[in-house]
């Protein structure tokens, strides 16, 4: 067997050491996100972010859903600054799972624009973005944070559907 190098050992030892705590903090972040959704109360956002640091790591560096949650919190906070101050991202969202699904679904829709998918696939994009469930803040943040070949084009096209 090959001997592990120090760097590899260090990485996995660190992960093992923070494993329990990071799972607990993720559970806590999910619980707070559920409270935010249930009460439509954005004052939970600082508490959610307070769950993120774990020693030298952050939850959003270790877990894809926590990464998405941190971006969603930024979207919701930005939406609160808009006229009307309505947390649009929380519309028709009833659980943490719904919250993450909505984020992923918007990403999928935007990717269809990026990839110039056929008309039928884009009709669903038009219908979804044309409703009142997705804000300009969400479009801007997701095109910034997710991978698109041409984010500028995606954002411009998506705005046309809003």
């Amino acid at each position, binding site marked *: *067997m090959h001997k592990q190098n120090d760097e*590899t050992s260090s990485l996995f030892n660190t992960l093992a050491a923070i494993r329990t705590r990071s799972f607990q903090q993720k559970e806590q972040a999910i619980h707070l996100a559920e409270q935010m959704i249930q009460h439509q109360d954005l004052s939970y956002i600082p508490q959610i972010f307070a769950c993120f640091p774990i020693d030298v790591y952050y939850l959003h560096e270790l877990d894809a859903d926590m990464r998405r949650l941190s971006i969603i919190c930024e979207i919701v906070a930005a939406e609160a600054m808009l006229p009307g101050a309505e947390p649009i991202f929380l519309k028709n969202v009833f659980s943490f799972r719904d919250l993450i699904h909505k984020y992923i679904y918007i990403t999928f829709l935007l990717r269809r624009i990026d990839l110039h998918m056929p008309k039928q696939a884009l009709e669903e994009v038009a219908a979804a973005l044309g409703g009142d469930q997705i804000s300009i803040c969400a479009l801007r943040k997701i095109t910034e944070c997710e991978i698109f070949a041409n984010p500028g084009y995606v954002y411009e096209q998506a705005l046309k559907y809003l």
Partner: protein
Amino acid sequence: MPLDDKKICFIICYNQELYLKECLLYLQQLHVPDGFSTDLLTIVDAPSMTEGYQAAMEESDARYKIYMHQDVFIIYPYFLDSLVQIFQSTPRIGMIGMVGSSVFPSDYMMWSDKRIGNIYHRDMPPYDRQAYRYDLSHGLSTVDCIDGLLMATAYDLPWRTDFLDGWDFYDVSQSFEFRMQGYKIVVPEQHHPWYVHDDGMLLSLWDYDKYRRICMERYPLSLLPPGTH
């Protein structure tokens, strides 16, 4: 079971309908090579990746099987034509991947060293997706190991359900199993990306070390065939 040489089967273990639906949307856009048929086997909430893939493998009579993640969206329209072309060009090619390691790192972490492939990335130069088509002259890289995001096979070899009961290292193990049977594993030169991998940009590492250690014991590099090159 005799295999149908003109059949291609997609095999997808999934746990989220949302991803599966999007994945299938992209599969529906693919051109099917003349004379071929396609099939789809989905496995929901499999106990492990190897068990899910093994069950599907036993159920399908397709010569060519494409084991892929729910979060992989194939964007290259002639993907199937190219796979068949590559497999038919060299019967010793047992498996094709989209990403692979030319030389498997001695720490058994595929991503710790240089990998071959082409990733859909931000600010890519624009290109005509319909016009691009792979040709064998573009090249093939022989690799030690491929990433499990997509593994296309021309032969059925058992998945190691006996010691891999999780979600990690099934790809490393299967790559070694193919090599130990004398097959080559290749990654085609992709002038433009063939897929999008929507994995949330993070690799889950919680159980990684456990399966890494198992594979280090099961597949000592010194005992493996001397590369595939």
